[in-house]
């Protein structure tokens, strides 16, 4: 764990630094993780996104060496981590509870790990000062850890891990205890910090917006499995399945049957056009439509993908308006997000048509 030069901030195809090979983890009869297999690139900001209890924190703890996988292999920077205890791994962790040592002050907390590196007094002091400046806590060195606010504790935890210059920084929901404004501020700071330091970040969160704001790539974890890995844009626009589609953002799902290479049959609603990939004719599927890709037209509207109905609810949010549109023959009303334009908000009950371009529709197999 010696000083390494900062890696180039943005590489187009990052070389894998972390290889997770077919890892499973069982607690008694319960499988917390099943057959996890992927790589994380050098200098990448990688997020594990999932609901609580999905196994994302367990995976992070396996990376840190706090938990051992039941089967499978973990390789960090070419070195197999089997039998390497947490204290000898090139990883450091920011704990959800921050785990600030209460009997030590800020400076002693940040310097805690440096003592184990035996860098000498001057280098240690220099690094602590650097870390304090990095997390904007200059002047807090002698502050008692009891006298810190939540945001400050979070910064100390971050500095304490970063000062070790790990190859991989593991963050376990570090922002979940902060209020919204502070959280958004810290998100931007974290992102900037990761870019300048070039350290690989593995970030666990249940907040999809946070994951999208921060990450180069996101892995969606559900019930101990990884559903899909990709950039925020990939996941949002090309979800691999219904679960991912519903997890990220809001999605309208219409039950359909595939009827051709570019068309589906929506039963009582008639035929609709959408690009179909890899699904044979007659397959039951879901037509997924993002609310913001739908348009509302008063009256009949133009030809093409068009569903007629009536406005059931309109919520004015300033920059945009959320509509719920009842479509006869559809169990749930369609959600439509319209940008706020000069046109007045549509009255409840007014007859409208919902339209969308063919390529806005996504056909997902069940």
């Amino acid at each position: 764990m010696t000083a390494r030069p900062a890696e180039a901030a943005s590489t187009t195809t990052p070389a894998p630094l972390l290889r997770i090979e077919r890892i499973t983890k069982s607690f008694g009869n319960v499988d917390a993780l099943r057959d996890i297999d992927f790589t994380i690139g050098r200098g990448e900001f990688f997020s594990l996104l999932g609901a609580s209890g999905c196994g994302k924190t367990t995976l992070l703890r396996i990376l840190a060496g706090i938990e051992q996988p039941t089967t499978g292999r973990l390789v960090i920077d070419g070195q197999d981590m089997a039998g390497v205890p947490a204290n000898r791994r090139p990883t450091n962790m920011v704990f959800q509870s921050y785990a600030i040592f209460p009997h030590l002050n800020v400076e002693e907390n940040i310097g805690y790990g440096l003592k184990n590196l035996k860098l000498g007094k001057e280098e240690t002091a220099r690094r602590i000062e650097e870390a304090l400046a990095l997390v904007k806590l200059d002047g807090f060195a002698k502050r008692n850890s009891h006298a810190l606010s939540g945001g400050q504790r979070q910064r100390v935890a971050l500095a304490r891990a970063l000062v070790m210059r790990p190859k991989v920084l593991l963050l376990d929901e570090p922002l979940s205890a902060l209020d919204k404004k502070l959280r958004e501020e810290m998100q931007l700071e974290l992102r900037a910090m990761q870019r300048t330091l070039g350290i690989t970040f593995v970030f666990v969160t249940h907040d999809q917006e946070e994951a999208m704001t921060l990450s180069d790539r996101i892995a969606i974890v559900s019930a101990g499995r990884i559903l899909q890995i990709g950039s925020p844009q990939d996941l949002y626009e090309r979800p691999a399945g219904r679960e991912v589609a519903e997890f990220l953002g809001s999605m309208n799902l219409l039950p359909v049957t595939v009827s051709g290479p570019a068309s589906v049959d929506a039963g009582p609603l008639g035929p609709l056009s959408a690009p179909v990939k890899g699904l044979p004719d007659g397959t039951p599927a879901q037509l997924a439509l993002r609310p913001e890709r739908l348009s509302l037209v008063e009256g009949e509207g133009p030809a093409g993908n068009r569903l007629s109905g009536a406005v059931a609810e309109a919520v004015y949010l300033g920059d945009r308006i959320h509509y719920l549109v009842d479509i006869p023959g559809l169990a749930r009303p369609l959600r439509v997000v319209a940008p706020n334009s000069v046109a007045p908000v549509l009255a409840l009950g007014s007859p409208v048509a919902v339209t969308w371009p063919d390529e806005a529709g996504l056909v997902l197999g069940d």
Partner: protein
Amino acid sequence: MVEVADTAVRAGLSGPRHPADPARRREARAGYGLMSPALLLMVAVLALPLAALIVLSFWTQSGFTLDRTFTLANYWRLIAPSDREVEWMGLTFRLAYPVPAILIIKSLVMSLTATVAVILLAYPMAYFLAFRVHRNKAAWIILLTVPFWTSYLLRVFSWKVVLGYNGAINSGLMSLGIIDAPLEFLLYNPAAVTITLAHSWVSFIVLPIYVSLEKIDRSMLEAASDLGDSKWKRFRRITLPLSMPGTISAALLVFIPTVGDYVTPELVGGPGGTMIGSLVQQLFTKQNNAPLGAAVSLVMMLIIGAMVLIFLTLIGYWRMRARRAA
């Protein structure tokens, strides 16, 4: 002890800040109301006897007549110098009446040894209970309290059976052929007293240490490992300092009452294992000199009080210095 002082300080800070606030006054009245049964009991069985003891120590007694004139003679007797030298354990006493001084020092040493032994025995047990036992914790805790189910006296007596001339150790060693005649140095000496005291207090002390260890957030330990600490280093840097307050109160809990213990030295101490409690008892009964007995017990109390105070101050100072040095 530390916690008690803390609470007292906090209560003192928040109490008189708004003396005019009627809600606060009502609260204070309710507080005294809740405390009054305990307070009355304390006054009746602690404060009044203590006051009586203090008054008694300034009187004198010869034979059966109590002289009620105020005098410091009893205290003077404890420190009055003399030309005669008395040697004890390499220490030379030039006192006219050296017995109390010798017994006080001896009691302190024996009780300190017992305290150290208790902590050394109890800490690993508490550690095991807090960190290694995951299932049936309640069962383990009940097992630890089993010794309390028999009386203190019985436990002391059983050590007599273990260490005695025809006791378990001697007969065991003899039947194994390791010794030919019973060992006589096992019972009736300071070591026997220390062993018995340590054993009687261990299970009592495991619980407060266990509580202080159990309170430690496990993520602290994970963080320490994550930052490069080996298990031993982590124990030294996190577990031990965080469990210190509980351990110190536990140590005081053993030290303070064992200095004045009377039963154990009487039963297993023999002539060599006498402690200060035996002297006080003798002064009050056989020697018919209650005022001197009162003076001895008050001096003992002051010494223990001073030692505890110095100990706590040193720990506070040491903590502050450790903070500044780091």
